[in-house]
C-alpha cells in the first residue's frame, strides 16, 4: 500500500515537474562575434525560458545532438554526412562548410530554484565538458537610459563580468529574469547585450510564446565536469597550438611550416579572466 502511495506521489511529482518544464517564451538571438580575420561568425541561438528555468542553445546543434544521442541515430547521421560528402566528391568540389555538422556547441542551462547555471561546451571537436556557476557572480547596476528593441521599451544596465564590461538592455514588460548566454538577473528579459566596443554580444531578433518543454542537454552524461577557468585555458591552448593538441593525443600530423600561422593571440574569448 505504501509502495502504491509512494509511486502515485512520484508520478504526481513527475507530472508537476513536467508541467514546470514547459517554457513560456522562445527568443532567438544573433550572436555578435567575429573570426580573427574580421568576418562575422553569424551564430544563432535560441532561449527557451520560463520563470524558473531556461536553456540557451542552437536549434540545429540540438537537433543533431538529439539524433546522435542514440546509436542508430548516430549511424544515420554519419550516413547523411557521408552521402553529402560523396555528392560533393561527385561534383568535384568539397566544401566542409556545407556538410551537415554542428557549428555552435554551447548550451547554458539556468535554474532559478537553486540559483545556479550549468554551461556545456566542447574543447575541440571531441571533448565535451561542463561547469556550474552560482548566479551571484553577475551583479548589475541599473541605469537611466532607455531604448526600444523589437518594439519593447528597454532599460539600460551594466555589469563587469569575468573580464569584460557589458551593457545590457532589458524589458520589464517580459517578466522573465533571464537573457542570452549566461546573462540573467535583471527584472525583465535581456534583449540586447554587448561589450563596450561592440565586439561581443547578443541581440534578440524574435520573440514568441512557446509551450515547448525545456529538456536537458542530450547526452549530458558524456560531458565531464571541470573548472571554468581550466576549460578556458584548455580551449586557449587548443586554439594556439592545435598541432600540439593532436600530437598529445597520439595523432601525428605533419604540416608544412608555411601553412602554420603564427597569429593566434588576436581574438580572445567572451570571458578573459582565465589568463
Amino acid at each position: 500500500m505504501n509502495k502504491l502511495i509512494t509511486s502515485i506521489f512520484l508520478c504526481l511529482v513527475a507530472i508537476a515537474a513536467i508541467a514546470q518544464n514547459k517554457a513560456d517564451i522562445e527568443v532567438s538571438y544573433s550572436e555578435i562575434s567575429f573570426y580573427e580575420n574580421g568576418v562575422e561568425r553569424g551564430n544563432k541561438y535560441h532561449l527557451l525560458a520560463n520563470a524558473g528555468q531556461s536553456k540557451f542553445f542552437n536549434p540545429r546543434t540540438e537537433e543533431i545532438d538529439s539524433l546522435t544521442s542514440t546509436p542508430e541515430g548516430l549511424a544515420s547521421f554519419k550516413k547523411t554526412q557521408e552521402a553529402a560528402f560523396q555528392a560533393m566528391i561527385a561534383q568535384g568540389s568539397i566544401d566542409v562548410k556545407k556538410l551537415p555538422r554542428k557549428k555552435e556547441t554551447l548550451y547554458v542551462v539556468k535554474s532559478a530554484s537553486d540559483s545556479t547555471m550549468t554551461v556545456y561546451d566542447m574543447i575541440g571537436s571531441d571533448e565535451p565538458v561542463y561547469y556550474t556557476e552560482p548566479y551571484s557572480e553577475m551583479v548589475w547596476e541599473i541605469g537611466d537610459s532607455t531604448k526600444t528593441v523589437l518594439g519593447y521599451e528597454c532599460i539600460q544596465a551594466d555589469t563587469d563580468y569575468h573580464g569584460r564590461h557589458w551593457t545590457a538592455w532589458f524589458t520589464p514588460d517580459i517578466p522573465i529574469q533571464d537573457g542570452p548566454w549566461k546573462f540573467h538577473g535583471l527584472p525583465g528579459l535581456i534583449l540586447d547585450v554587448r561589450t563596450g566596443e561592440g565586439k561581443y554580444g547578443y541581440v534578440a531578433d524574435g520573440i514568441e510564446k512557446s509551450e515547448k518543454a525545456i529538456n536537458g542537454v542530450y547526452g549530458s552524461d558524456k560531458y565531464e565536469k571541470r573548472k571554468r577557468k581550466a576549460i578556458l585555458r584548455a580551449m586557449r591552448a587548443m586554439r594556439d597550438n592545435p598541432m600540439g593538441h593532436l600530437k598529445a593525443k597520439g595523432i601525428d600530423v605533419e604540416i608544412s611550416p608555411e601553412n602554420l600561422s603564427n597569429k593566434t593571440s588576436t581574438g580572445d574569448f567572451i570571458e578573459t579572466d582565465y589568463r
Partner: protein
Amino acid sequence: MLFVAVAAIASAQVNVTGKVIDKENDEPLVGASVIVKGADGKIKKFASSKSDGGFFMTMPSVNGCRLEVTMMSFAKQSVPLDSVDFPLTVYMEPGTTLLKEVAVKADRIREQGDTITYNVGSFAQQQDRSIGDVLKRMPGIDVANNGKIQYQGEDINKFYIEGSDLLGGKYGIATNGISHDDVGAVEVMENHQPMQVLSGISFSDKAAINLKLKNKAKATWTFHGDAGGGYSWQPEGAIWDGELFAMAVMPGFQNITTLRTNNTGENLSSSSTDFFADRRQTGLSQYVGIGLPGVLSLSDKRTLFNRSLLVSTNSLWKLKNGEFKANIDYSFNRVTAEASNITTYFLDEGNRIITENRSGTEHTHSLSGKFIYELNQKTAFINNTIQTNIDWNDVSFATTGSIPNGQSADLPDYYVSNKFKMIKRFKGKHLVTFQSLNEWESLPQTLNLDMNGEQFRQQISDHAFYTHESAAYAFNIKGVTLSLEGGIKGYLRSMDSQLPNLPQELPGLTENVINTNYLTVYATPKFEYWVRRVNLSLNLPVSYAHYTFDKAIANRDEVYFSPSLSFNWKPNNRFSGTLRGGLGRSPMNLNLIHPGLIMTNYRTLKSGVDNFYTSSSQNVSASVSYKHTRHGLFANGMVMHSWSHIPYTMAQQLFGDYVVYSYADAKNDDRMLMAMGNIGKTLDFMRGSCNVNGSFSRNESHLLSQRQLVNSVSTGWSVGGKINGNPCRWFSFDYRIDYSDNRLSMNGISESWLSTMENEISLTFIPHRKWQWTVSGEHYRNELNEHNYKNVVMLDTKLTFQLNKKIEFAASLTNILNKRSYNYTTYSQLSSFESRRQLRGRQFLFSITLRK
C-alpha cells in the same frame, strides 16, 4: 554623537520582504519578478522570488515607492509601500502577458548546400488557408495565376510531398488543398536531378520543391472540408462553394483525394492542369474555334459564370522495388458568357466594322487516368507511364448583330499513351538508356451553323498515331560525359473534313482528305563537361525524315540538324549564370496542310498550304540569378533574342462578311527580343516580404494582307511590385501593383501606347484571436484609346470567426459595389476588338470549415 548618527541611518534601512503566492492554489510562486519603483517610476531595487516564494531587499527608505510583482501568465500586482507592514504577502491572479509577436524565430530562410528551407510559419498570415497562399509570399518563389510555380524565374521540375512525387505535374491539388498549418517547411532543391542514376553525371538547372509536413500531419489521415452557400445578384440566384480534402502521408503509402465544386467564379483548372505535361507528339489541334472570348486583366472570380466540379484521387504505394502511382481525375465545367463585340478590320480602303452580340454555353467534361511504375535507384531507373484522357466538350453560341446566327460544336478528344524509360548505370561511369513512347489521339470535330434560315454542318475527323523508340549509351570520365542517342520515330495521321453548302461568295474547295505520315531516323551526339562550378553541354541532333502525303501533295525527304549549346557557371552558392544558344531547321506544323477550306467559326474560314515547308530559327539567351539567403534576398534576370524564318505567311481576305485566312509563299521573318527581371526580399521587421519585377518585349513580323506586305512591330513593357507584412499582432496586409504599356506599329505608323494598371490590396484585422476581418479590393485602369481610361473598382469583405481549432465560420460579401459590366478594347495584328462583358455582381456567401 557620530556613533548615534550612524546608528540612526542604519535603523532607517527598510527591509522589504514578503512572499509571492498563487491565489488559485495558495502555493508559493518561484521566479516572479519583484521590483521597487520610486516616485519617479524608476527602478530602485529588484529581486526575484525564491523557491519558497519569498523575496528580500533592503532600502534606505520606501517613501513614495511602489512594489510591483510580475510573472508570465499572471496579472501584474502593484502595492504602494508607504503604509504597509513587512513581510508582505502578494497574491497573484491569472492573467495574460501580451507579447508583441514581432516574433521571428528560427531563420525564416535557411540554406544547406543546394537546399533552401523556408519556414512556413514565418511567412503565413492569419487569413491564409492553403500552402499556395503562403508560397506566394516567399521571395524567390513565384506562383502564376494559373498555379504554376517558378523558382528564380525557372519552372520547377518536381513537386514532392515528404520526398515523394505523388501528384506529378498536377501539384495544384496540393498547393490549393494542403493547409499551410500542416506544413512545417518548404524546401527548394536547386539543380535538382530527379533521376538518381544521373546524379553527378547530368546537370539540371531546374529546382524542385519539397513540402516538409509537421509531425501532426504525418502517419495519419488529415481532413478538412468547406461548405458554403449564399446568394448572387448577377447571375441572380443561389451560389455554392464546397471542398473536401483528405490526405494521408504514411511511410509506405500516400494519398490525396479532393472534391471541389462551386459556382462562385472560382476557376478549378489550376488544380487539374498538369504543369509537367510534355507536348503531345500526336500534334493534333482543333480547327474549330468558337471558344468564349478571353478577358483582359480581370481575374476569373469577377468574370467567370461557371458551375464547376473537380474530383481527384491520387495514390502512391512504395513497393519493395520502386513505387506505383495512380492519379485519377474527373472535372466538369459549365461556363456561360454573354458579350457584345465590335470588331474593326484595318484595311487600306477603309475600316470594316462587324458587330455581334453573343451568348454561349460551354460544357467540358474531362476524365483522365495516369498509372505509373517507377524505380529510382543509383544504378537503375525504370519508369512506365500509362495515360489516358477523355474529354467531351460542347459549345453552343447564339449571335445577333451584323450576321445573326446560331452555332454549336461538339469537340471530344480521346487520347491514350504509354511511355517507357529505362536507364542502367554500370561501374559508375557507363549509362545505357532505352525509351519507348506510343501515343494515339482522335479529335473529331462537328460544327453546326444556323444562319439566315440555312443549316450548315461541318464534320472533321482527325486522328494520329505516334511511336518513338530510342536507345542511348553514355559514359563519364572525370566530369566529361559523352553520349550518343539513336532512334526512330513514326507518325501516321489522317484527316477528313467536309463543308457542304458553302456560302456562294466563298471560293475554294470544301473537302479535305489528307494523310500526313512520316518516318524519321535520328542520332543525337551529346557532350557534357561538368567540373566543379562549370557545366557545358552541347547537343548535336541530326535526323533524316521521309514524309508521305498520299498524293495530296508531293512526298518529301528532309535532313534536319539543330545544334544547341548551354553553359552554366556557378562560382559560389549565391550566383549562377547561364548562356544558351541554338539554331536549326524544323518541319512545318502538319495540321496546316489542307488545300480545302475549313470553317473555324461562323465567319472565319481557313485554307491551308498546298506545299510542304520547313522553317529555320536561331535563338540566344542569357540568364543570371543571385541569392543571399541570410538577408532573404533573391534576384534573377533573363534576356532572350530569337529569329525565325518561315517561307510562308498568313494572309487574310474578306469576302462579304467572311474572313478567309490562307497561306502564301513569302519570306516571313520574325524577330523577338524579351527581357525580364525580378527581385524579392524578406522584410523581417514586419514578418513580410516584397518583390519588384519588370519585363520588356519587342516582336517584329511580316504579314501579307490583301496582297500587301505588312511589317508589324509590337512593343510592350511592364513593371510590378508587391509587398506584404504583419506589422503588429492585430493587422496584416498584402498589396500588389502592376503596370504595363503596349504599342503596335504597322509599316512605320505607330498606334499610341496603351496602358493597363492594376492595384490590389487586402487588409486583415484580428481584433481578437477568434475573429478576423478582411477588406480587400482591386482597381483596374485600362486605356481604351489614347488618354481615354476605363476605371473599375471592386471591393470585397470577409468576416471569419474561429470557434475552435476545428470549426470556423465565415461570411463574405464580394463585389460590394455591385459593378455588373466591363468594357475593353484589344488589338490583334490586323484588327481591333471592342468588347462589353458582364461581370459577376454582388454576392453573399456564408461558409463553414471543418478540420481534423
